[in-house]
């Protein structure tokens, strides 16, 4: 156990801090969920890429910096400390990128990873279907082999970034009549292919964000399939593993929220009930605990370990911490909590934050599913019963 940064790590922290200070957008970007805001965020991705800060954990050969997880954590700490924008490229960086590196052919790596790293191509994730949410193995959208192409027909939903992204990836049923986890393949597709219709789904705060994707005999080259036919479920689980795991939510993001909450408390102490005051203290404790745990998991991975059901512990902890911090902020806002914009026209970030935090316990595997996983895989309780 050594909780001191090396001089190299300190120098790296200084480097990213300095770069961010120089290159941060003058004013906050519009929301990533809207079209104009999305393009502003894509510009930011390209700015990051220009400084080679886009994919810091990727190997240099794919346009990254080959940083280790500790450097990644330092990068994230400085990134969130500076109040830098959300990542339009999140699906590429953390979901598809690592999956292509693990399962892609050299040709696929060259073709997909470099544009991803340069921020030239934005990726949408397309797992869920109307009948396959928590129960992802219920996927029915089919991809029928036709020579050197697949012909995709069906519907995906809750596709993040799909309203404005360029390409998408997801699971499709390539073996007719196959059931559940079998007969699925992991396929990448151009969102502008003929036969794809995008329908943005309006979220409760009014912005689009997610989208439905309708596939009407969409022809996709077979070389866009990752790994071999029928292997899709295992590939997706690896991806979901990354998603649920270490990198989906870096601690810096919650430490920044906790810090803002403390500032809000100091400004609005009169709106704090005793329990809210304690909740503010708990916010710092929770965000720090999450950071310690992440540093600890990172060190285990660097020492050759793997993460399994711990990813489910993480998901529950950060999602409930985030909701609780934002709920406390709503209380501290008092009668102004309901205002979408304040009199001066500024956006009520805490209201947006609370609303966004309500999605945390739902997406990337609901917290009910995560609790089942913890009980069955981490604690070894029996599978039977209504899972």
């Amino acid at each position: 156990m050594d909780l001191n940064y090396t001089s190299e790590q300190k120098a790296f922290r200084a480097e990213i801090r300095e770069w961010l200070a120089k290159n941060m957008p003058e004013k906050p970007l519009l929301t990533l969920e809207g079209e104009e805001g999305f393009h502003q965020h894509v510009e930011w991705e390209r700015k990051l890429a220009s400084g080679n800060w886009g994919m810091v954990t990727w190997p240099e050969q794919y346009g990254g910096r080959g940083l280790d997880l500790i450097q990644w954590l330092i990068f994230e700490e400085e990134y969130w400390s500076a109040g830098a924008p959300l990542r339009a490229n999140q699906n590429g960086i953390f979901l598809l990128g690592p999956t292509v590196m693990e399962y892609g052919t050299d040709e696929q790596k060259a073709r997909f990873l470099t544009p991803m790293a340069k921020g030239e191509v934005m990726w949408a994730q397309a797992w869920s279907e109307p009948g396959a949410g928590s129960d992802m193995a219920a996927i029915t959208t089919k991809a029928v082999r036709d020579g050197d192409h697949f012909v995709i027909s069906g519907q995906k939903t809750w596709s993040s970034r799909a309203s404005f992204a360029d390409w998408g990836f997801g699971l499709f049923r390539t073996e007719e009549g196959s059931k559940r986890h079998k007969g699925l393949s992991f396929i990448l597709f151009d969102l502008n292919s003929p036969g794809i219709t995008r329908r943005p789904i309006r979220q409760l705060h009014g912005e689009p964000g997610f989208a439905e994707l309708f596939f009407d005999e969409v022809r996709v080259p077979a070389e866009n399939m990752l790994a071999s036919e029928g292997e899709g479920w295992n590939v997706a689980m690896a991806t979901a593993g990354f998603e649920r795991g270490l990198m989906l939510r870096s601690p810096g993001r919650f430490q920044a929220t906790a810090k803002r909450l403390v500032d809000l408390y100091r400004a609005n102490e009169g709106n704090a009930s005793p329990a809210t005051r304690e909740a503010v203290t708990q916010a710092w404790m929770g965000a720090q605990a999450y950071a310690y745990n992440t540093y600890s998991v990172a060190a285990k991975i660097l020492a050759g370990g793997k993460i399994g059901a711990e990813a489910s512990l993480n998901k529950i902890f950060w999602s409930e911490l985030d909701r609780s911090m934002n709920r406390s902020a709503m209380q501290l806002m008092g009668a102004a909590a309901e205002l979408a914009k304040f009199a001066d026209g500024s956006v009520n970030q805490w209201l947006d934050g609370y609303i966004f935090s309500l999605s945390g316990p739902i997406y990337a595997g609901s917290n009910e599913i995560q609790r089942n996983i913890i009980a069955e895989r981490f604690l070894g309780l029996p599978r039977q019963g209504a899972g």
Partner: protein
Amino acid sequence: MEFLLSDDQLTLAEGVKDYLAGTHGPEVLRRLDEGSNRDPAIWQGLVEMGLPGLLVPEDQGGLGLKLLDAALIAAECGRACLAEPLVDTAFVAVPWLAAKGDTADMSAIASGEKTVPLAHKINGWVADGDGASLQSVDPLRKLAAAPENATDDPHLLDLGALMSAAQLVGIADAMLEQAVEYAKMRHQFGQPIGAFQAVKHHLATATVALEFAKPVVWRAAQAMDDSIDRASVHVSHAKLAAGDAALQMAETAIQIHGAMGYTYEVDLHFWMKRSWALIGAWGHRAFHMKRVDDAVIGGSLDIGPAHTFA
């Protein structure tokens, strides 16, 4: 001693419930959201039911009913997510003005010609009032910035808080019903998600909080009707119990709906947003907690088994 809603009270509330269920369903909320948020026809319907005059003395053209009667109707307005300013004007402004002996507008209110936007220092805004408009998260609320000279009259605050609490229990009832219906209809893993114990227990837990908030609200309304001297404490208790139950129900209902609950495509969001608005309105959580704390820990209130009602 009879802690019981009378058949007349229940019949009246049931009538309003049925009327709003028939005329003010989710499709109306969607239409108002796309339009101007207000619809004179809806207001006219409420007028024809005599609701604006519910608390107006009979000799001024009203029904001369009590705050408890009004609270039951306010709960139904919450259940229907009613946007028209009925509760503020008829259940908050009227008893406030009447108590001040200011009866000038009573008949105009009773006949539905006049509504009364309320400016109180504790709110930064005025609902359905004039002045620079403010944007609420609730697309059906019309807020304007509060004037400098807003009153801080505690009686008005108690009335506003009481009626917010009453609306909140109705809102929570509506969210519970939507979550239960969704849990019966939505299938995953080969069964309705409502058959999963986790879903059952989430909903049962939120139901307990809600069912035990309701009698607190009715008791507070009766305390104001009886003008008992510590009525304010019971109003604060009601606002806290109803607000906490509604917030818990909103978080439970969206969780049961999963990703659908996070969209504008199911109607749950209308009720969630109304609950967020009313929880902060007419005294936020800390304000009411302090009033109860001062009474209970501060010692200004008699507590214990022999002091349930006195």
